[in-house]
């Protein structure tokens, strides 16, 4: 069957093909903003980033500048960061403490909830001007919280967040269960971009097939490092989490500060990891504890939130500014109560694989950028093949491409619905 977007999903012939114009076409890119980024729930931030009342941060979400605040009562607000007067960015700092935001142009000053507190030269305006709803900073149409994860939606209507997240919600819950005292974003943010289409990063984030080739040097490095590897083989399956969300869940030989010990951590480390595991078991039960501790997961929440719970946990979001360019922001998530030793290992693990300076991510970047360059060969008959595992009986393997097909089917559904 050929879908509206030109995707070919032919189960009989075990064929799933995505036309390459999905990565290059300007009009598809514009449609993605209308049909996807303006309709879907998008990740905004984590509660721990505004740990205290009266704090704020600014962030760009799908091209729009957002001011995320917590007022003195502790309530969270997501404001569109533009002045109702002439539109200047109101807050120009990355983060901080403060309950009043003064626009640097004419001095209009707003509270944490966006209301206009001070209007300089107010005698020049009619009565009631200052309380006119149009003269207040606008709120993002919808903000919702799932556990400690905040999401926003630029559309007033549509399903609520929990419905939207479908089975991905349980994996978000699972992340919260890593700790008896809650999870936090560790200070330090990786901010970068890739000269490639944004959907290539979504695919790459849970592509279990590319590791052996693309990350051969990383795997060799692990092999070289005495004691860095445990006995667990790289093995697992892909799980469709509905609504375009999907993950791969698998055992892996690398150490996990959430209770998967590897020899390099030593006997002292083993004691601590054993204690972490025992606490986990008594809190969530043996089955869930084993899943949390021993299994790695790479999850993509449609359209642009990646949570990789691997040798550390990364929360990563991204959005395109052009068909061939995306901006990425990535954080490390960790248990609040984590000991100094475990925190250090977690960050050491994180930077080993992940991020612009890691031993793996630069090669992912290279792959994505080279795909984008390759698309310049053009021609209507150019398709990407996403069919691995379609002919397999039983559960799809973690190195099949079922998780990507789930993503593409949702992408197609949203774009087709918009066209109709």
């Amino acid at each position, binding site marked *: 069957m050929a879908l509206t977007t030109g995707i070919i999903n032919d189960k009989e012939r075990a064929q799933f093909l995505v036309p390459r114009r999905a990565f290059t076409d300007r009009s598809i890119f514009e449609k993605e903003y209308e049909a996807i980024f303006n309709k879907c729930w998008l990740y905004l931030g984590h509660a721990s980033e505004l740990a205290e009342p009266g704090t704020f941060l600014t962030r760009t979400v799908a091209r729009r500048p957002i001011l995320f605040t917590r007022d003195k009562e502790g309530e969270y607000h997501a404001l569109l960061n533009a002045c109702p007067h002439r539109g200047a960015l109101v807050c120009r700092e990355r983060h901080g403490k403060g309950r009043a935001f003064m626009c640097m142009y004419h001095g209009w000053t707003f509270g944490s909830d966006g209301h206009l507190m001070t209007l300089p030269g107010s005698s020049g305006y009619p009565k009631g001007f200052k309380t006119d709803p149009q003269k207040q900073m606008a709120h993002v149409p919808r903000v919702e919280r799932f556990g400690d994860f905040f999401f926003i939606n630029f559309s007033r209507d549509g399903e609520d967040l929990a419905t939207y997240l479908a089975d991905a919600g349980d994996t978000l819950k699972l992340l919260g269960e890593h700790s008896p005292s809650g999870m936090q974003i560790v*200070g*330090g943010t990786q*901010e*970068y971009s890739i000269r490639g289409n944004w959907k290539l990063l979504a695919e790459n984030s849970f592509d279990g097939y590319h590791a052996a080739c693309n990350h051969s040097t990383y795997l060799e490095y692990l092999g070289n490092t005495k004691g860095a590897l445990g006995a667990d083989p790289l093995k697992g399956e892909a799980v469709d989490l509905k609504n375009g969300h999907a993950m791969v869940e698998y055992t892996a030989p690398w150490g996990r500060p959430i209770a998967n010990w590897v020899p390099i951590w030593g006997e002292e480390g083993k004691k601590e990891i054993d204690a972490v595991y025992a606490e986990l078991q008594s809190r969530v039960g043996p089955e869930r504890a084993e899943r949390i501790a021993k299994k790695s997961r790479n999850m993509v929440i449609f359209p642009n939130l990646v949570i990789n719970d691997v040798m550390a946990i990364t929360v990563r979001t991204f959005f395109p500014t052009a068909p061939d*360019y995306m901006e990425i922001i990535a*954080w490390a998530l960790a248990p609040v109560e984590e000991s*100094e030793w475990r925190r250090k290992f977690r*960050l050491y693990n994180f*930077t080993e694989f992940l991020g612009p300076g890691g031993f793996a991510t630069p090669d992912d970047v290279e792959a994505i950028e080279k795909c984008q360059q390759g698309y310049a060969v053009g021609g209507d008959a150019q398709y990407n093949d996403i069919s691995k595992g379609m002919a397999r009986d039983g559960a799809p393997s973690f190195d099949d491409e079922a998780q990507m097909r789930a993503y593409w089917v949702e992408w197609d559904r949203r774009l087709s619905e918009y066209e109709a």
Partner: protein
Amino acid sequence: MSTATMERTLEDSLLLRLRVEELLFTEADLLDSWKLESWLALFTEDAHYYVPPSDVDGDTATPDTALFYIMDDPVRMRERVVRLSKIGAHSEHPRSKVRHLVTNVRVERDGDIIRSRSSFIVSRAKDITHDLFVGHYLHEIVDQGGELKIRKKTCVLDMEALRPHARISIIL
């Protein structure tokens, strides 16, 4: 004048700066010519190499509590060099053209440690991309029997983000 204050004399501090500059320029040269094994030999056995992210104070932050781009210990520094020598380090195959400019070198003694602050621009060119990394180096240097060795190198990026670079696949 006592021996302890001798070094404050203009000649001695100039001489120390020249020695450190010689080390930094050698380092830059080795990195530009991809002689990474020799680059590694400029470091002590217990050396560290750090690149903090843009949203922390790079002069004071520690990778034990904040997420960095790079937090290499001696093992990982060696492995970084090993990795970059392989064809499977795709991001640097074929190798990029690299040029390190090191300027504004300031040097001061802190007990047995020589601390150097300098400015850098590192240029990386590869096929269709050409990116500049701008920032300052903090080198911790020790004198090992008359030979200066680097014990810690921190590359603080004076940039708001790694955009459009995407990666630090070369050594800064």
